[in-house]
């Protein structure tokens, strides 16, 4: 298990991947080892033990000042050489996929991105091809795939596994090591960073008011802004909107935009193309507002109001204000 962390803070997806890794280790009859790259992550060893890591390999090296894909992959490749694991697993985040692809390139081995946890045991014999399910098309299509290699490299699709600590925690025995890292890896280590802004993001907002081509113009978003403000939420949009230059891409919900996890998502004037849906479907409740009662967004929503969004959205805002008195 490659454990992704940001300056020592283990990312939530890494615990999902650890939970997957534990199940995989059971299916293989193998031990689960974790790897953390860089000293700031040393403190995580106990917690990684709680998630089933019997050993935590801690890569220490002067070059490991911050995250770097090449340096991380070098550190992993070193360990693959000395331990000969059956598999190397990471979480399917930007960094996780990047590091495993770099490792795969070093080993000239296949790499299966965004694997689902279903039905592992019968399909992962210790020394032959494995058959796995992976996510394609941003989640709107699945692929059964075989992977044939001495060491299988995989990432676990985000939110596909619920992170759970091990019922009987493992030792999490810390084993520091100094990997051989190519000095050229220094080039792809983070140079500068700007810390996260406080406040709501599209990915984490409790309410998202989304608008599509049906909004008609950049100015047409003003009533959606009002509704979002009234509910303490943020505005989102479809790709038709960003392509028209009505809103910035940071507001785009979907396969090539942001996946939201809102309690309520308003989809106003959005047809519900599959690439939009995979970004919206994480919302717990979807309210579609559309002139077309047969629109895909309407059919897939929890609730719908049929009609012109330019009339309906301001009416909802007004009704909320009336309710507040």
């Amino acid at each position, binding site marked *: 298990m490659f454990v992704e962390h940001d300056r020592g803070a283990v990312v939530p997806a890494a615990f999902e991947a650890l939970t997957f890794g534990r199940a995989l280790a059971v299916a293989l009859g193998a031990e689960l080892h974790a790897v953390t790259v860089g000293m700031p992550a040393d403190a995580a060893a106990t917690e990684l033990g709680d998630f089933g890591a019997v050993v935590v390999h801690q890569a220490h090296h002067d070059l490991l000042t911050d995250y770097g894909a090449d340096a991380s992959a070098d550190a992993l490749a070193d360990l693959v050489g000395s331990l000969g694991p059956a598999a190397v697993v990471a979480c399917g985040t930007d960094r996780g996929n990047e590091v495993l692809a770099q490792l795969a390139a070093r080993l000239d081995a296949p790499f299966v991105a965004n694997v689902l946890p279903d039905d592992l045991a019968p399909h992962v014999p210790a020394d032959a091809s494995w*058959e796995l399910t992976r996510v394609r098309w941003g989640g709107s*299509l699945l692929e059964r795939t075989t992977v044939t290699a001495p060491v299988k490299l995989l990432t676990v699709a985000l939110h596909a596994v619920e992170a759970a600590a091990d019922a009987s925690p493992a030792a999490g025995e810390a084993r520091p090591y100094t990997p051989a890292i190519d000095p050229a890896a220094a080039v792809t280590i983070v140079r500068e960073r700007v810390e996260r802004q406080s406040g709501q993001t599209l990915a984490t907002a409790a309410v998202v008011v989304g608008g599509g081509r049906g909004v008609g113009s950049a100015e047409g978003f003003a009533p959606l802004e009002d509704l979002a403000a009234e509910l303490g939420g943020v505005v989102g949009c479809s790709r038709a909107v960003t392509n028209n230059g009505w809103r910035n891409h940071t507001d785009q919900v979907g396969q090539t935009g942001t996946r939201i996890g809102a309690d309520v998502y308003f989809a106003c004037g959005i047809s519900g193309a599959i690439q939009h849906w995979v970004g919206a479907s994480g919302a717990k409740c979807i309210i579609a507002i559309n002139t077309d009662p047969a629109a895909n967004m309407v059919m897939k929503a929890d609730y719908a*109001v049929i009609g012109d969004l330019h009339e309906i959205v301001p009416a909802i805002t007004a009704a909320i204000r009336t309710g507040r008195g």
Partner: protein
Amino acid sequence: MPAPGARINVTADGQAVDTANLGFTMSPHEECALEAGLALVEAHGGSVTALTLGPVDAEEQLRYAASLGVGAVVLVPIDDLDWDPQRTARAITTAITELEAADGPFDLVVFGNESADSGGFQVGIRVARAQARPMVTGAKGIRVEGDVVRVQREIDGVQEVYELPLPAMVGVKEGVNLPRYPTMKGRLASRKAVVNSTPVAAAAGGQTMVHLMPPPEQASHLVVLGEGPAAAPAVVDVLVERGVL
């Protein structure tokens, strides 16, 4: 790639997306990769080459690239619909090596962060490694300053900046720029563009597709709250029930 609408249908044998009623398109990250190249050339001079590995029909996308002002378009033709990521990367590496042998090295090779259809998250990285060039993926900003490309990306709200010496490779995400549309003149000229077909042999890798399948369908539980503004109070009730009011 095919451009599906409300759903993606799989052929009966499970080997491909059923494209019987679908058009084809360039995927979003790659459209932005092309735009990045065009914008850099406008600012710094030089030329852009667009390359794709795919069936002969992919020429349509290369012509689109030509209509935007790309100098040279290269097709690495394959008979199948898809090659596995290792094989694709090997073939693209060979094709780039051949192009560079003829015309000199590319300062920058721009990839999409991941292909929208196969989503392997690896082809660019494999090519970069094979060419011994530094690569950063997920780029939301690219700036060339002298011999260095500054790449900015976002990881969970943190903005990271990288500085890679040229020649380098970068994987971009949609949002890095807003791709231009072709002009009428560009469209006309692209009809005459010569597609340089470069067949390349490459060994298969260790991952093989067995079949595609749709994800499990979610059952519909739609409640229509009403028509027009009169439905507003019913919406408010839902918001209260869901605890956001």
